């Protein structure tokens, strides 16, 4: 029974890890950009959800109706107005711009929200569902896993089945060929960043319910997102899900004592043995 409990907990934790990494892997795969501000985007999403939920008296999950479109538009604006311009010079300056952005955003959040610990308190954060004797599933973890899975499935279907999704994939596969076929690369990059920010908004909402966060917490989630991207493969959405599950299971199997160690050893092993990740071409 204990083994089943560990596997369930690992899978549920893996869901939110995957969600944290999906926006980053999109930027890696499509825009070929290492977005070092991804962690701060997640924390902005967390603050937006916490504030809105508290102000409107609604469940934080409902706040994504507002936060996702806002973050999508901000992401598009950011890519079109700033990062696309810098990327003309090369990907390294763009990387430095995202690094600068992460510092600016973390400091701005500190000014606006103070350094106090935050958390979106929901009535079900301490509830659990009893499956069998000695086997419980945390209600919050189950909800967060469902949201993560739904986000990744919707994103996969969008990229596979829609014209816009296909044009994004085409840009990712062959930039020049896609341009010659009439795909507006700058617009595609802006949409990719918009989607990455939208997933960060959803991830942030989940983080706000599950963990305590601060303006400076972005770095931790960036590291998790890196782990997911390294293991899953840059640009692979299904890989993100599998990588999240692997990291989640590693964390739970290793326990609080050795989980982080095992997760980082796994990352190093993947970098050494299969640097392109599990699902990258």
């Amino acid at each position, binding site marked *: 029974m*204990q083994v089943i*409990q*560990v596997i369930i*907990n690992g899978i549920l*934790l893996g869901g939110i890890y995957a969600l944290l990494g999906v926006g980053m892997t999109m930027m890696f795969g499509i825009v070929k950009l290492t977005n070092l501000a991804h962690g701060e985007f997640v924390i902005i999403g967390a603050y937006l959800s916490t504030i809105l939920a508290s102000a409107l008296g609604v469940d934080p999950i409902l706040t994504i109706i507002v936060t996702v479109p806002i973050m999508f538009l901000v992401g598009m604006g950011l890519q079109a107005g700033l990062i696309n*311009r810098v990327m003309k010079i090369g990907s390294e300056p763009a990387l430095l711009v995202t690094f600068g952005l992460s510092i600016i955003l*973390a400091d701005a959040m*500190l000014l606006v929200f*103070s*350094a*106090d*610990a*935050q*958390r979106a*308190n929901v009535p079900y*954060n*301490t*509830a*659990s569902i009893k499956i069998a004797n000695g086997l*419980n599933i*945390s*209600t*919050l*973890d189950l909800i967060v896993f469902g949201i993560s899975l739904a986000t990744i499935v919707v994103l996969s279907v969008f990229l596979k089945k829609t014209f816009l999704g296909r044009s994004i994939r085409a840009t990712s596969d062959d930039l020049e060929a896609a341009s010659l076929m009439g795909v507006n690369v700058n617009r595609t990059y802006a949409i990719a960043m918009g989607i990455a920010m939208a997933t960060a908004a959803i991830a942030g909402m989940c983080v706000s319910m599950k*963990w*305590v*966060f*601060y*303006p*400076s*917490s972005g770095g*931790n989630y960036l590291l998790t997102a890196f782990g997911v991207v390294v293991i899953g493969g840059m640009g692979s959405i299904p890989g993100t899900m599998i990588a999240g599950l692997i990291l*989640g299971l590693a*964390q*739970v199997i290793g*326990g*609080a*004592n050795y*989980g*982080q*160690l095992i997760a980082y050893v796994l990352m190093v092993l993947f970098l050494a043995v299969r640097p392109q990740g599990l699902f990258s071409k």
Partner: protein
Amino acid sequence: MKTVKRVAALLLACLFAVTLLAGCGGGEEAPAGSGNAAPAGGTIKIGYVNPSTGALAGNGEGCDWVVKQIENYVNNELGGIDVDGAKKNIKVIVYDSTSDQQTAADMAQKLCVEDEVDLIVAIQTPETAIPVEAQAEINEVPCIGIQAPVDPCAMASDTHDWTVHAFWTIDNIYEAHKALWTAAGFGPGSGAKIGLAFANDADGTAWHDTFVVKLAADGYQVVDPGQYPSLTDDFSNVVKAFKDADIDILAGTNIPPDFSNLFTQMQAAGVEVDAITMGKCCLLPGDVAALGENVEGILSEVWWSPLYPYVSGLTGINCADLGAAYLADNGGVMPQPAGYAYASLELAVQAFQKAGTTDKAKVMEAIRALDVETIVGPIKYDKEMNGLQYSDTVVAGGQWQKNEAGEWELVVIDASLYPELAGAVTGEYKAGNATQK
């Protein structure tokens, strides 16, 4: 390309304007007492590494305000300090550790090497104090260590030539927590099962090693699932160990995210306890706000409060007046760490007054010989642990309860270790949301 150039030109113009304005304003570098005619002898520089941001930022709250109070007092009211035949103003240079140990070390090095401070303060949790104390030793700068348990700071190094320390020892904090368990109905010999939650950092290890031995000696049953790295996402195995053992009490010291995550996961798994004593993370309203109603009943140590009976030997202000001044300026209760921030600068100023010089060896000698009253109580470095000269400071026991205004307050419920704090006891133990098995 033209647009890029235009944007760049605009940015440069803005930068120029900001620099110009900053120059006109005098900037932050001007000492707080610069409104007065500055004494001719220059400035005494005191370095201070503060966790202004990050997970420990609660501990760093109030630092700027305290610095302003002491600078104002020394530079404006005293007119400086007599050293080396001249009156000198003090300037406290504060850098942010970002709650990161490596950054704390980097900032301390910067203070010692680039800013050439005359003295450095190592304060606010072992995560900040230990790296700062290490840099003070390396660079041979007098260091006043304070507000971090003595044991991890003493054990972090075998060389303490340039450092003294003041705070409670782990032995004392164990006694303070034991008094709280007793208040909750689980005195020594009760056989209560105590689950331990300690991170594997210097602080957690020092607490863990002492608690394990002393708990067994006092007849408690220890449930020890092992230590873990800070910022752990999943505590499944720890929660399971507590559930299997059906613990009565949860005890430990943690940074706020770790305790919050563990506590939430315990509740989700149906682990209920009769008492929780938790160090470090449950000291400040900002830290416990994230726990919501579940903070009710949590027990923690109280090492300073505006209700304490002490008077500053430097400024003559008492705890109540200092707390009232903080409240008036900042709109909130003065945090415990801010009391210690005040004491650290009191000690620094008194060390220079006693030494009468900025010669580092003589300042260090003066610090070691200090026997003074401060806002956190009397300080006399008459004890030693692993070569570190230290002074004990007081500690009482508190519990988070809702006050009449409906706000959460860490009410002092036990002062058995230091009876002189009896006047600060304003409540008694009450079972709350966090402690109802």
